């Protein structure tokens, strides 16, 4: 899909390997498992909790030019699902191709209704989406 997915925690890469070997639900993992043992990268993205030495559940999307386009952080106790990330990534891919358009809340995949911001849409989002 033209993207590199990296999962990151403050565990070492050696523990990542052990976890992957041990945990059955990671059997088919193909993404890179990154180690941020120093917390440097977690601090850069503002997800490092100093007292705990751990990273919060942060999801970030960076485009091929190195610009940060999405950021979402949840506290330790709330898990995420991969569909949420994929929806956001697909929307970013689409918007990179169609910079004049915008993906509304309901947008899930290419072909779904988008909005083109402009004077005629002001106060008329409901009508624009119903078209």
């Amino acid at each position: 899909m033209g993207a590199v997915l990296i999962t990151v925690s403050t565990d070492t890469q050696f523990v990542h390997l052990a976890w992957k070997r041990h945990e059955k639900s990671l059997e088919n993992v193909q993404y890179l498992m990154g180690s941020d043992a120093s917390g440097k990268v977690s601090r850069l993205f503002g997800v490092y909790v100093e007292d705990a030495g751990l990273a919060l559940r942060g999801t970030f999307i960076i485009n091929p030019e190195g610009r940060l386009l999405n950021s979402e952080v949840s506290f330790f106790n709330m898990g995420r699902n991969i569909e949420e990330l994929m929806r956001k990534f697909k929307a970013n891919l689409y918007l990179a191709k169609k910079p004049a358009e915008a993906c509304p809340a309901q947008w899930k995949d290419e072909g779904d209704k988008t909005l083109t911001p402009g004077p005629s849409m002001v106060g008329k989002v409901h009508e624009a989406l119903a078209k």
Partner: protein
Amino acid sequence: MTLESKPLQLGGQVPNFELAVYDPVKNDFGTISLDEIKSQGKWTLLFFYPADFTFV
């Protein structure tokens, strides 16, 4: 200026960073950097979580 002193902003440029990685496909260890991914013309999806052996 250190990286930590300048918060990242949406729409802004992310400074280069490097991570040690375990690559399950190659079953090997290595490193990856943002610059490396950018040079391949690819997007970077970062997924932070607190700890291995827990849920994500």
